[in-house]
């Protein structure tokens, strides 16, 4: 569907002298280009420019003079680099290797079996998203720390202590699980039942069907999930910071350099290193998406799982085990929030809640958090989905598409810390016309949207890719402009995915710390930061209590989103109904 002819190449002998023919641009496509430019500008202003503002410092010396690559060379010489790099890579790979199969089994159970309590499992699987990463760290320490209940069990497995790689891997697996799951569920729920009917008619076994239909169909989803997982673990600094002990990874190196030593130059060097996985991810995504064909054409029959006693039971068992592990994580934090003084006085009390809400300024933080989360969910979803649509389904402006796609993939690789500092450098710069946004909730919201842009974008793209690619061509032939088709067809079909994206933004905004820690003002301080302060002050119980409260609020919000999803489903998804 290229609107502009590709350069002539080997023109055949009979071809007339080639004046490049370029299709005239219809006004409706112009509209798309204008929007695309708007989104590109937005990403430039709120992602590329702040990043450039901080990363430029990688090339600057103490007095901000240009020093070329000397910061890189200096950093490469420190022995810390190799060990941190290696640690980051192997931990990320380990987490990916554990999480993807587990999340796939879970997603498979949710989409392809008839096991009971599916909504319950879906809900439980969201727990890690609902809770700040501090919660899982506190919980892991209470389970496996030196005073932990299950320490003996862990040591029997040959792991000496939870601090370090084991803790990071466990906590990260927990934390990234919903991210991977979200992508995998989308990939698995978009199957064409006719393929399975055909296979069944040929007497294909369940296992063979799995390997010949299911896996190839979910290939793109699996790959994105793996890439997202890898990059998230690579760039996360919250978990390694609280449970990593002296296990150094690149992200904590950034923290040490920037916060500990205020060495922005070297911090930027490491941050640049962290961007590499995103570049890699972009390349892979670019390569793969060209080969991905639509799975859900108008003729496709939505897949509906058929009951199968043995299989359903196995899936139920697998999902239950996974769900129980998640609940154990949350449960311990809840317990910790009520225990008077771990581990010496375990009598239940409400003092942590009182202390957190009354003394810890967390109360008003919740209000700010809710504002920010609501704003992120609404605007983030609209922006991400519309952006993905423009990229994937409209035509023309080829020079714009590559960069915008790249920008959409970039946030995943940017440590929030780096993004937050970049925001300071960029928005607080004298003469920046956007300076008025500095320290406002609006900027916090935008920062959060950008920070979590990629997963939303990937979900939207996965949903969009599953649509027949000829919808737009048919519309054009019927003289219906693309935005009408977007409104009448694409949006309604994709509303479940959009509700998912909105929920994702909401819960992440509730728990995010790393980027916003640099951007809040006294009026806009959010709860997640207040919790970090409690932990710092040694009020672990209060921190746990407030983390549980965030989880609870997010859970309620998730419930609301689920009701919304159900309502939306009933309104817009009637066509998926039984034949």
């Amino acid at each position, binding site marked *: 569907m290229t609107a502009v002819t590709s350069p002539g190449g080997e023109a055949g002998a009979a071809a007339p002298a080639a004046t490049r023919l370029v299709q005239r641009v219809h006004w409706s496509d112009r509209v798309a280009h204008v929007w695309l430019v708007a989104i590109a500008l937005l990403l430039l202003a709120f992602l590329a420019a702040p990043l450039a503002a901080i990363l430029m410092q990688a090339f600057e010396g103490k007095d901000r003079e240009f020093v070329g690559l000397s910061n890189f060379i200096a950093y490469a010489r420190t022995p*810390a680099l190799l060990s941190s790099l290696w640690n980051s890579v192997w931990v990320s790979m380990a987490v990916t290797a554990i999480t993807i199969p587990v999340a796939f089994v879970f997603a498979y159970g949710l989409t392809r079996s008839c096991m009971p309590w599916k909504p319950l499992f879906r809900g439980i699987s969201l727990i890690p998203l609902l809770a700040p990463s501090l919660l899982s760290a506190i919980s892991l320490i209470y389970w496996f720390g030196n005073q932990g209940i299950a320490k003996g069990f862990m040591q029997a497995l040959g792991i000496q202590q939870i601090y370090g790689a084991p803790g990071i891997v466990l906590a990260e697996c927990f934390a990234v699980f919903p991210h991977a799951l979200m992508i995998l569920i989308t990939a698995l729920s978009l199957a064409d039942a006719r393929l399975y009917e055909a296979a069944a008619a040929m007497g294909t076994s369940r296992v063979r069907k799995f390997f010949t239909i299911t896996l190839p169909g979910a290939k793109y989803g699996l790959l994105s999930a793996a890439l997202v997982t890898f990059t998230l673990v690579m760039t996360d600094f919250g978990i390694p910071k609280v449970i990593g*002990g002296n296990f150094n990874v690149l992200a904590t190196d950034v923290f040490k350099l*920037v916060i500990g*030593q205020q060495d922005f130059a070297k911090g930027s060097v490491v941050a640049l290193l962290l961007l590499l996985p995103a570049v890699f991810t972009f390349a892979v995504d670019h390569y793969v998406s060209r080969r991905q064909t639509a799975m859900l054409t108008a003729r496709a029959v939505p897949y509906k799982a058929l009951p199968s006693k043995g299989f359903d039971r196995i899936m139920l068992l697998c999902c239950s085990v996974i769900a129980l592990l998640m609940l154990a994580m949350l449960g311990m934090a809840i317990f910790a929030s009520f225990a008077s003084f*771990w581990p010496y006085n375990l009598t239940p009390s409400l003092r942590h809640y009182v202390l957190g809400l009354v003394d810890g300024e967390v109360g008003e933080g919740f209000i700010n958090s809710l504002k920010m989360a609501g704003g992120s969910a609404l605007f983030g979803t*609209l922006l991400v989905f519309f952006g993905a649509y423009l990229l994937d389904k409209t035509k023309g402006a080829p020079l714009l598409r590559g960069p915008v796609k790249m920008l959409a993939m970039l946030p995943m690789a940017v440590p929030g810390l780096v993004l937050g*500092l970049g925001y300071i450098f960029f928005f607080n710069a004298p003469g920046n016309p956007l300076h008025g946004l500095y320290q*406002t909730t609006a900027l916090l919201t935008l920062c959060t949207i950008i920070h979590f842009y990629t997963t939303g974008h990937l979900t939207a793209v996965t949903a969009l890719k599953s649509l027949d690619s000829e919808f737009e061509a048919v519309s054009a032939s019927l003289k219906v402009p693309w935005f009408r088709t977007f409104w009448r067809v694409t949006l309604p079909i994709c*509303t479940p995915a959009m509700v998912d994206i909105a929920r994702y933004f909401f819960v992440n905004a509730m728990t995010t710390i790393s980027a916003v820690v640099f951007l809040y003002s006294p009026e806009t301080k959010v709860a997640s930061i207040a919790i970090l302060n409690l932990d710092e002050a*040694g009020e672990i119980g209060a921190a746990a209590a407030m983390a549980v409260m965030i989880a609870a609020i997010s859970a309620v919000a998730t419930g609301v989103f689920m009701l919304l999803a159900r309502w939306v489903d009933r309104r817009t998804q009637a066509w998926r109904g039984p034949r």
Partner: protein
Amino acid sequence: MRMSDLFRLSAVAGTVLFASLGFAQKTTLTVYTALETDQLKAYEQGFYKAHPDVEIKWVRDSTGVVTAKLLAEKANPVADAVMGVAASSLALLDKQGMLEPYAPAGLGAILPQYKDKKSPPAWFGMDVWGATICFNAVEAAKKNIPKPETWKDLTKPVYKGQIVMPNPASSGTGFFDVTAWLTLFGDDGGKGGGWQFMNGLHENIAQYTHSGSKPCNMAASGEFVLGISFEYRGNSNKAKGAPIDLVFPKEGLGWDLEAFAIHKGTKKLDAAKKLADWASSKDAMALYGKNFAITAVPGMAPPLPNVPADYESRLVKMDFAWAAENRERILAEWTKRYDGKTEKR
């Protein structure tokens, strides 16, 4: 209601919400601080009593974050004043020319070692936070581990895997511990006794944490027996009921100041000066004394129950300028020795 109506409605509602989020702040005096929230409240009330016409907007975070933020905002400062941030950090800001020298009303009463050497000084101290070992007596009893008296005790094999200390590369507390040891035992470009001591200590360290509070918090919750931390955190944890004893090693203690400075270029210099005057006053010192055993103006703090009487005399002679100058070299050496290799022990 049709779907499309819903979207339209939510878009409108969202726009209104979005517009109402920002642009609603009134500016008074913006003060960046690393003080504890409960301390802040007391100080704020004290200041308001003296100056009801100024309102303070606190921006509170850990020392590292506040310092990073101030440096990042250097081009277009937001803060009018900085209160309760480590003197070593303020020295760094001063080196960047970011502080407005001012001699506050109470400056004369402040001991010379607790304020900037220049005149007028770029910053002055409020109180001292010194190194302290939080020693969990309950866990120690279980493991039959004796209470240490000196830094050197910590290198004994009995403490292997029981000690937590802050990483000097990410924590100011950790850094003054290291500089104190180098001052006490010798630096000598990496060959001195301070490094020998740290070599031995490293053998017993279970973990280098990213914050100065964390080691004491971990000792308080029994995760590890000993946490090298600072006095205030030790006291506050003990007050909460943690079974810890505070140990002030005899050889000498690293320390830093909670200090005050006016940010250069503030448009509210008068109000900032009012705050500086109050922060250096005896009233303020009395408030600091409730939390800290040593205040910049001597004799303002009532003795604290867990702090020895000769606490102040145990503080090592700190040369902030020397520390700032040698920071990069020390951290590079430290990182090379103890942080770069995270082999399993």
